[in-house]
Every structure is written in structure tokens, then in C-alpha cells.
């Protein structure tokens, strides 16, 4: 199941806080899709520490980040 989170109009560090909160409740089969106004490089280091995998792509002017538990199948189209 894909959970969606839009953090485009939030000021730092709220986007990071919201993403980390959402990841706390993310079950192993699920994936989090984050819509961001910029590529959140600092987030990646935290994801690595928390044993998550991610995929980033740009759609128009939005940065879309898919996050899932490492070792579990990535969402469709992300492998």
C-alpha cells in the first residue's frame, strides 16, 4: 500500500519531521510517497541509518521520493 505525504509548503525542519513521523508507522509491506519542493539530501543520511531504501525522481517542479523498508520489494516501477 502506498501512503502519500505532501510537504511542499512546510518550512524546514517540518518536512523532515513529518517524513520521520510517517516512517515510524510504515509497515514492512508499505511504501511512503513524499512530494517535496526540493531534493532533500539531508533526509537520505537519516534514511540510511534507519535502514530504508528510496528512489527520487522529478515530476515538473516537484521532487517525488518513494521510501520503503530495505530488503522488502520496492514499489512497482522502482526496482
Amino acid at each position: 500500500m502506498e501512503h502519500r505525504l505532501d510537504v511542499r509548503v512546510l518550512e524546514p525542519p517540518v518536512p523532515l519531521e513529518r517524513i520521520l513521523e510517517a516512517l515510524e508507522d510504515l509497515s514492512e509491506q508499505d511504501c511512503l510517497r513524499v512530494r517535496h519542493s526540493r531534493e532533500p539530501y539531508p533526509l537520505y543520511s537519516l534514511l540510511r541509518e534507519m535502514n530504508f531504501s528510496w528512489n527520487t525522481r522529478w515530476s515538473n517542479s516537484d521532487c517525488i521520493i518513494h521510501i520503503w523498508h530495505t530488503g522488502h520489494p520496492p514499489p512497482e516501477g522502482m526496482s
Partner: protein
Amino acid sequence: MDTAGLSLDQAPPITIPFKYFLTAALFSIAVGLLFTLHGGDVMSSRWSPLALGITHLITVGFLAQVMTGAMMQLLPVLAGSPIPKVVVVSWVVHLSLLVGTALLVFGFLSSRELLLIAGGITLSAAFLILLMSTGMALLRSKSHRHTVRTLGFGWTALAPTVILGGYLVAGLAGLTQVAEMQKIVTLHLSWGLLGWTGIVLFTTIFELVPMFYVAPGFPVLIKHWSLPSVFLLLVILTLSNFMPGAFLKASLVLIAMTFFVIGCYVLSIVYRRKRLIVDTTLLFIWTGVGSLLLAVVVWLSGGNDLLLGGLLLGGVCLTIPIGIIYKVIPFLCWFHLQGLLIRREKFDHTVPSMKCFIKEKEAKRQYMLHLIALCLLLMASQLPNPFAMPAGAVFLFSSLYLFKNILYAYIVFHNERRILNS
């Protein structure tokens, strides 16, 4: 899987920006002290040894320290690429900048050629290492965004600044004969203030303003092309030394107009922000951009050099970076503690909010002192007596306050880190 970004082990230690920002505040204190003691003499001529000493305390002492410290932390955040061997590079560059600035300024103040040469060589070494390491980080960046390219232009502008500065130092020390000193000084100033400072400062603002104030992004023409145009115009300005004088004036007018348009856009973007709170960082940015716009008007209308210098050095170079420091430090403290919390798995602990590191009330008090000092400085540019001495004294207090605020943020961070490590 995307592997961009740093691991927390690779992230530059937070002591790096603190070291640079605290040193910058110390140089700012030195500016206040010199101005309090000799303000009237500083205002006698832009060529006086005191004026040259204070100018370099501001540009190389304060500005270079802030911009280097910020860049070492911001490159991983903005471009996803750290400066290679950042700990060693930061120590070497920090120490060389510190010693080089002190030597150069003492050289100006005492007119001792040996100190000038030693300062010039030490600073050249610092900037060479900085340029090489920043260049490597920018080249390695996987981000192809225009920000990376524009930052490259900004740091490249440092090279002619340093080469021309070295040439002028050699001339002052009697090692060589500087032909057309006035033109070389204009080029040195232009590459340093408009090129390096202007491009790096406004590239940072183009990123930080939409991000931290939840404002619309800058138009493509401004964000992608205005600052590279400034770089190109500086190249034309340099080449115009071999052309009739009109080219030199025309290039400078175009650069001034470009910065005027950039300044207007910054104010317009800030006005359209979604986060409507006016915090102190915003006041610093408004004051800095307002000073820039005023400086362009003063220059185009043929106003005097001292007023122009006061607006550019005091109003822009000493003002906008403080706003950036107050925005960047709390975020870095929060981010490093958040990372530590995850690594230590102390999920029952909460990282303090960003507001706890630099209290808004304290930042605003420092801003008020800074603003009063700036107004007095601008009045002193017209009437050195009686305004120069009070301008220096208030600026001294403002700088001490800045130092205290940065130190306080570090103490809060340090205490929280100790709790998480226990």
C-alpha cells in the same frame, strides 16, 4: 535504489561551521574596536591604512570565514556533495584565513612590508586550498541544478580577486611597480565584492529564501542567468582595460543594474512568502537588500565613496551573512541531533525545536544594535565627527552580542548531544 546523499559519518562535523562563525564574530568585534578608537581617521579617506585594514577585516576576516563555514555545510545539503577531506581542509583553511587576515591587517595598520607579504602569501594559500576543494565538491556533485553551476562561478571569481590582491600587495611592499593602480584596485574590488561575494551570497539567498520562508521560487531568468551574467560582465570589465574607458563604465553600470533587479526580486519573493511571520533573519535580509538597492542608487547618482563603502560593506557584507548564520545554525543543530537520536535509538527523547538554539528575542536585540550601528555609520560617512565613534561603539556591542548568540547555540547543542550520548 537511489544512493545520493551522505551517510551521517561523512557529514561535516558541526564544529566546523561553529568554528568559522565564531571566528567571523571575533573579526567583527575587531572592526568595532578599531572603529571606536579611530573612526574619524577611517573616514578621512578610503585609501588610509586604517580604511584598508578595516575593509579587509570585514571582507577576509568576517565574510570569508562566514562564507567558507557555510559552504562546507551547505554543499552537502544543496548539491549533495561534501568537500573532500573536510575536517583537514577546514582546519588548514580556517587557520590560514585567521593568521593571514591578522598579518595583512597588521601590515596595513603598521605599513610593514614584511607583514603585508606574509599576509598575502598565507591568504593566497588558504584561498587556493579552498578553491581546489570547493571545485572538486562541485565537480563531483551528481546534482545538475543551476545552483551548482552558479556557485562554481562565484568561487571562480575568487581567483582573480586573490591574484589582483596579491599583485597590489607586491606593489605596496615595493616588490613590483603596479601600473595603473586605480584600475587594478577597481578590478580587485569588483571581482571580490560583486563577483565572489555577490554571486555566492545571492546564490545562497536564491536557495534559502524559498526553502525557509516557504516562498515561490525565483524566476528562471533571475535564478539561472542573472549571476552568470554578472560573471560575464566582470570578464568584459577586466578586458575593457585594453579598450576605451567607456567600456569599463558600461560594464559596471550593467552589473549595478543586474544587482538592482536581483534585489527587487528578492524583496518581491519575500513579500509573496507563505510563512508570514517576520523573524529576525528576515529583518537582516531586508536590511541587506535595502542597502544594496540604496548603494546602486548612490553609485549611479555619483554619491561619495565612503557612503557607498558603508552601504556595501556595513549594509550588505556585514548584514546578510548574519541573517544566514541565524537561519543555518539552528537547522544544523537540529539535524545533527536528530541524526544522533536515530543512531543511538533514543526514540523516547525529543530533539529541541530550532527556536531553542538561537532565541528570537536575543537575535532581535542584536539586530536592533546592528541597525543603529549601520545608521550611525552611514551618517558618519557624511559627518565623521561626531558619528564615527558612536557607530564603532554600538557596532562593537552588536558584534559581542552576535558572538554570544552563536556561542549560546553551541552550548545548547553540546548539552543536548551529551544527553543523547549518555
